[in-house]
């Protein structure tokens, strides 16, 4: 009889214990000092990763970094409250903001980083040759709007459904290369370093660098959640300093950048040449302007990229004052 009376109590204790363990293991805002960063595995996003390396030693902050497949996934994580600072292409930030993701664009950190590649075994292609070819791109990447703009300028329509001039498939960055290699697609708009890899490994040929649209050379965006920016200004400032620091080191010491990106980020999968070709096409930087974002928004609306019901207004969410302050303090141009 006694044993049975203990049983329900035991079960309750077990249940509470499990609940407590679960509750205490999800950090959310528990460990206040940790800044949670969402990043992508691309060569020109390397400076943001490098922040993690110098965070403790040089900046006095704790940074926890999570890697995602593409910018849209970073936005999802922000919605879920898991990320304070994110690194994405502007397109993901824009469509995120349009869907109500509470972010500010606070800095830019790389420009360019796109190439239109064709299969190396096809005769050399011009844009006008693309009709009827199989084209692929990563959804939510800046390459998507660049592709749309380039095709639009050449008078070609595209969609993922049959019926337009070109039918495109959506694949993630590494899968684009694989599809090109296995000849499952003919043309891809690719990011770095994958584009340089495709060229250096011989299965892709550059058709063009898509910087002749109104967008120009696209800038990648560093975003912060509104909550982080407004409620933790001190941490935000310290992170920004760290970011500027890290980027400055990368710009002034290309060998450091190369070593870090190739060995730490890509675990030796990237050669020296591939890295330098990639960064040559996507140099590190800091700055971004509301105008650039607004042009990008307008282009996205024009071509229906992002399917935004309510396009955002750049002025309302591009806030570079923090960046400017930090740059002035650190004496960086």
């Amino acid at each position, binding site marked *: 009889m006694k044993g049975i009376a203990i049983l329900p109590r035991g079960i309750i204790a077990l249940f509470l214990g499990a609940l407590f363990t679960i509750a205490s293991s999800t950090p959310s805002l528990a460990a206040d000092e940790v800044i949670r960063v969402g990043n992508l595995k691309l060569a020109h996003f390397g400076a943001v990763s490098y922040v993690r390396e110098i965070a403790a030693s040089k900046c006095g902050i704790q940074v926890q970094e999570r890697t995602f497949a593409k910018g*849209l996934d970073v*936005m*999802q994580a922000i*919605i*879920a409250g898991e990320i304070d600072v994110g690194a994405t292409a502007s397109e993901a930030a824009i*469509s*995120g903001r349009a*869907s*109500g*993701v509470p972010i500010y664009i606070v800095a830019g950190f790389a420009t360019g980083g796109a190439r239109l590649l064709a299969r190396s075994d096809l005769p050399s292609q011009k844009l006008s040759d693309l009709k009827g070819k199989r084209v*692929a791109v990563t*959804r*939510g990447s800046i390459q998507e709007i660049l592709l749309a703009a380039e095709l639009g300028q050449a008078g070609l329509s595209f969609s*993922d*459904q*049959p019926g337009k001039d070109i*039918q495109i*498939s*959506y*694949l993630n960055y590494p*899968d684009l290369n*694989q*599809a090109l290699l*296995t000849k*499952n*697609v003919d043309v891809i708009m690719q990011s770095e370093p994958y584009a340089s890899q495709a060229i250096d490994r011989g299965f892709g040929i550059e058709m063009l660098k898509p910087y002749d649209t109104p967008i120009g050379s696209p800038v990648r965006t560093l975003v912060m959640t509104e909550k982080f920016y407004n409620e933790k200004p001190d941490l935000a400032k310290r992170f920004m300093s760290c970011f500027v620091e890290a980027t400055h080191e990368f710009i002034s010491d290309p060998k450091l950048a190369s070593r870090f990106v190739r060995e730490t980020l890509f675990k030796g999968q990237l050669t020296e040449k591939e890295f330098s070709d990639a960064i040559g096409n996507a140099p590190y930087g800091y700055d971004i302007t509301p105008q650039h974002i607004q042009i990008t928004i307008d282009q996205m609306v024009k071509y229906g990229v*992002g*399917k935004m019901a309510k396009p955002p207004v750049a002025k309302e969410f591009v806030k570079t004052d923090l960046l400017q302050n930090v740059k002035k303090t650190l004496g960086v141009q």
Partner: protein
Amino acid sequence: MNSLLNKLARGLAAPVLILALWQGICALGWVTPQALPSPIAVGLKWLEYVLPSQPYDGNQSWLMWALSGELLHDAGGSLWRVIMGFGVGFVLALPLGLVMGANARLREFANPLIQVLRPIPPIAYIPLAILWFGLGNPPAIFLIALGAFFPILMNTMAGVSQVDSIYLRAARNLGASPGRIFLKVMLPGAMPFILSGVRIGIGTAFLVVIVAEMIAVNNGLGYRILEAREYFWTDKIIAGMLSIGLIGLGIDLAMERLNRHLLRWHRGMQ
């Protein structure tokens, strides 16, 4: 009539309660609409999803227009893949299962390999599927076939081996040839198990199609859910999920009917 109403009431009680709770949570603002849209938003989105997107323009028959909604197109695409993939899996697994179930020697040879491959979920084959079959429907059908293959194989094998040897002896005693024994005794005898395997196989095929469609096809419920995710349309995600659930229910009811017909002799069906 009363008992039917009662039954209906009992069946609907849980879903209605959950809907009310859900609506309450959203109305009170406890969650962001992106994380959990209200059931009303989902319902509206579902309607939008199932209805035709363009107004009727007289260029086609009214019926064609009425059925042109995106959801129907997607559901058709997914179902087609399920049927093709399941078909491939079935056609491969059934004979192999029958033969392996009947022949202990063959079982000895093939079993270790099968037991190693079986636990690997089809999803793990995705990268290989793309490498081997490219993009589009072929890798998806491969994955779905894989998902259906093992349940059908394992259940068919079990079914054949549990056919009471006394039936086999009786059949031999009555002068039946091995072919007749196989077709008229082993196969019907194994049928309850085979159908069980088919049911599981279709279920798995349906699970796999959703994931398989996230690779590189351009329509289908899985594809649509992935797209909705990437455009932050949580309401459409849920609408898509509900559609999947409804279709799955439909398939299951159909299987139930088939079962009841084919196994009407079965003691267990009483």
